[in-house]
């Protein structure tokens, strides 16, 4: 069902700003994710560029009012191309004391904090760890504070809907949404339509939410907030149809698309794990595409079932996060030995061990490269923005099918849950990634003289092996994880063959470098003093930081990798071109280690392992420091 609508004009009575970063924070039960998403969609539909950062607690539902129950959603909206959800928010919406306690430190100096003052009673203050009411001492000095008794106003406004008083205050997030919608001159229609669709089944609740939303809007209009209205013009965007999409949905759709483009049924074998489960959920909805999803008993069975399906000729995928990748590593090693296509999706999260399951991190790169016994190389693709997960998924599938190899696709919790506007591609422009199966014998048995199929006969160009599907007459063959003779695939323990096979498997993966784009350098490509090299979700922060630094007159270039193994063919040459190379990573320096070892360049790490993404300011600071470092 589509819902295309023309972009409305902007409102006249508001101060025009070029961007704003808003953070909604409240109790887990307060519906802050919903509020944030609705505001995002309204802004997207309006035509702004934007990027979001949901930030929710690990608990399913922590006790109300506690700090660890705080759920937040940050969004940046702008009239220009942006790539990240912003550093410090300029507006913070706090639904209760715990939200204020946990989030205030993020607000930029002089920023606006909108507080639901009704909730600042003794009980809630204590739960949030306050011994004094922060609204009554000077702890908020330095910020612009807007106190709104949202709970009582909401209750009041929804009276006529007929919902029970107990339930009435549930609509207070829509009150807040209405208020912020007014403040930023967002159109109301999209949200109203959405409320009707979403809550249509329960008319009372639907009406309550509509009333609260309108009341919030009206509150802005009619109160002293008059001086606080802003408008942000639509961003100049390529013409086309857009949708707002998060990384996991984009990734799942990329897999659906890959199946169509490969003309193969998709098979997902998976075990639920945060933050990857949503891909399983999404794919399980699309059975009409012939997609099979099997929720396996564990991660090993997740990849095992996928590998079985791959043997059967399907586009096989397994999705997980770090702990699951660790568990799957033995089977990945088998897939490498079998040389069967298989995509392993790792939505990275904070580690080690259970770590920070709901927080983001990018510390699985080294495991992706080396986390298997023996010489077991495989290609690695990484996505760098929510919507780009769509392309990354297709690319991972393309490589897997073409080279008959497992491929690791890296995303992370930030990309998974963050969203941005996406220009929906015309499906006819998507690449054909179909492959061919063997239909005829490719060998004559030396002793019997009978035609037969040798599974390890290779394409001389790609080194991909011949792939014959069970069910094909005359091509019966056996494959296995013991070292095998190249060509015949029969078990072989000879030193020569083992050495040859180790080299061949490595050469096959290395050869993919010929089949991927060279890495592009942006910014001061010709004469930069420093190159910022990145991969994964750091992209947004890096782009902004480099832009700002260049605006400040510094000579900085930027390159971002989507292929981590093999590297683009020109990477060594690119790195050697610049006196300094800086690598911001949400780990302790994985990519830096890889390029140092490979190219012997003194790439320096800016490390951030805090469960939260880089801000552009942090990258900027690192660039400045590195530029100043004496060589």
């Amino acid at each position: 069902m589509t819902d295309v609508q023309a972009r409305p004009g902007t409102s006249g009575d508001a101060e025009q700003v070029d961007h704003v970063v808003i953070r909604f924070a409240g109790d887990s039960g307060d519906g802050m994710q919903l509020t944030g998403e609705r505001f995002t969609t309204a802004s997207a539909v309006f035509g702004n560029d934007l990027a979001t950062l949901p930030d929710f607690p690990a608990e399913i539902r922590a006790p109300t009012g506690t700090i660890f129950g705080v759920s937040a959603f940050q969004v940046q909206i702008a009239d220009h191309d942006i790539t990240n959800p912003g550093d410090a928010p300029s507006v913070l919406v706090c639904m209760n004391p715990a939200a204020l306690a946990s989030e205030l430190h993020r607000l930029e100096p002089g920023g606006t904090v909108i507080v639901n003052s009704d909730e600042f009673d003794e009980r809630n203050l204590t739960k949030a760890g306050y011994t004094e009411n922060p609204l009554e001492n000077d702890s908020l000095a330095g910020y612009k504070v807007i106190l709104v008794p949202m709970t009582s106003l909401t209750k009041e406004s929804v009276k006529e809907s007929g919902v029970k008083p107990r339930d009435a205050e549930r609509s207070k997030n829509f009150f807040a949404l209405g208020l912020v919608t007014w403040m930023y001159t967002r159109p109301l229609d999209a949200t109203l339509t959405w409320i009707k669709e979403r809550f249509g089944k329960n008319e009372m609740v639907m009406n309550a939410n509509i009333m609260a939303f309108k009341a919030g809007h009206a509150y802005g209009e009619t109160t002293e907030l008059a001086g606080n209205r802003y408008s942000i013009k639509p961003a100049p965007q390529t013409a086309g149809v857009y949708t707002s999409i998060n990384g996991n949905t984009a990734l799942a759709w990329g897999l659906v698309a890959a199946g169509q483009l490969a003309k193969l049924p998709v098979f997902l074998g998976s075990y639920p794990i945060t933050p990857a489960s949503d891909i399983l959920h999404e794919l399980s909805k699309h059975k009409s595409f012939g997609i099979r999803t099997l929720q396996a008993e564990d991660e090993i069975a997740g990849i095992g079932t996928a590998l079985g399906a791959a043997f059967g000729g399907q586009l096989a995928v397994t999705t997980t996060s770090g702990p699951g990748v660790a568990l799957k590593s033995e089977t990945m090693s088998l897939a490498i030995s079998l040389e069967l296509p298989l995509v392993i999706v790792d939505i990275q999260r904070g580690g080690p061990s259970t770590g920070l399951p709901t927080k983001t991190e990018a510390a699985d790169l080294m495991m992706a490269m080396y986390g298997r016994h023996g010489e077991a190389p495989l290609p690695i693709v990484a996505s760098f923005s929510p919507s780009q997960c769509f392309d990354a998924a297709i690319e991972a599938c393309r490589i897997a099918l073409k080279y008959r190899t497992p491929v690791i696709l890296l995303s992370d919790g930030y990309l998974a849950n963050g969203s941005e506007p996406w220009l929906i591609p015309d499906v006819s422009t998507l690449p054909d990634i179909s492959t061919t199966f063997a239909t005829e014998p490719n060998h004559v048995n030396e002793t019997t003289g009978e035609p037969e199929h040798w599974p390890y006969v290779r394409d001389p160009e790609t080194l991909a092996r011949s792939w014959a599907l069970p069910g094909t007459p005359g091509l019966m063959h056996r494959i296995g994880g013991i070292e095998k003779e190249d060509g015949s695939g029969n078990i072989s323990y000879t030193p020569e063959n083992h050495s040859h096979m180790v080299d061949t498997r490595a050469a096959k993966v290395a050869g993919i470098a010929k089949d991927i784009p060279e890495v592009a350098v942006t910014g001061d490509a010709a004469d930069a003093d420093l190159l910022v090299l990145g991969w994964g979700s750091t992209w947004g922060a890096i782009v902004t930081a480099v832009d700002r630094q260049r605006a400040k007159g510094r000579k900085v270039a930027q390159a971002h990798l989507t292929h981590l193994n093999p590297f683009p063919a020109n990477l060594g040459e690119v790195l050697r071109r610049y006196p300094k190379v800086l690598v911001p990573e949400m780990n302790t320096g994985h990519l830096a280690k890889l390029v140092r070892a490979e190219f012997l360049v003194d790439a320096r790490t800016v490390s951030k392992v805090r469960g939260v993404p880089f801000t552009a300011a942090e990258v900027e600071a690192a660039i400045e420091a590195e530029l100043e470092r004496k060589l």
Partner: protein
Amino acid sequence: MTDVQVPLTSRKDWQSDQEVRWCPGCGDYSILTAVQLLMPDLGVNRENTVFVSGIGCAARFPYYMNTYGMHSIHGRAPAIATGLAVARPDLDVWVVGGDGDLLSIGGNHLIHALRRNVNLTILMFNNQIYGLTKGQFSPTSALGKVTKSSPMGSLDAPFNPLAVALGAGATFVARTHDMDRPHMQEMMRRAHAHKGAAFVEIFQNCNVFNDGQFETLTTRANRDDMLIPLEHGQPVRFGKEKEKGVIISSDGAAHIVNVADVGEDAILIHDEARPEPGLAFMLAHLASSVNEPTPVGVFRAVETTEYADANAKQLAAAQERSGAGDLSALLHSLPTWEV
């Protein structure tokens, strides 16, 4: 499974060109022979047949069959085979493994494959030892078993493999042994015909590390008195003259009795199709060691929904409901706007 006419084949057609590499005298040979001789009778094509195995001596099996095959990794065959059977319901998927492969490291995949009732024919070669790693006790080795890793005797109470399978909800469970080719073939034929996950335990002699483990049961001289053949709808009787039999008392316990003592009518009639697995489970516990009369045959065979089939039906229903997937429509399925 297929509509194609199945060409006549002979044993030779099912033999691969690989030299068989088990120890001379190993029970695995007789199982291989039984399978290779049976296949031409099953009315199936070689190209639609796949053998999937883990690691172990038993797991070498696929190499010797001129079918499609995968010799995977230790313990994972049931999971891999599940994926294949779900993705490709047109294939006949067999799983072969040892007691270590399928009950130790692979125990979880086995029980989950059984409960899902995926259409697999699972042959477990139970030699009560780890053969390939040269003789450690396995999860079916008897308590007190002295092996390389249990010099003072194993402390691990063994699994009863049939009980594990029944506990997991297996819809087809049978037992046979490597000394009786016709019986093996009958069990395999039945298992193969079963729509769903079929589990067959085969007592197998490892003449190098656990020689003679099943001799008390399987030699010609011992069979009559020590093996209790289970036949659907027939009284459960054994002995040279069928003079012994099994009864169930009202306290819910099974007993071996002299038929003469209780009368023929009191003897339990075997019912492999009983919906609840209780009876099969009780029979699986009739013997607590190889020194007691031990039932062989089909313990349970219950037809119910098969997983891949149910899965295919959901896919068909989804397509029926919303048509074959339309990628462009999917990409436009969230709120959109035009610029």
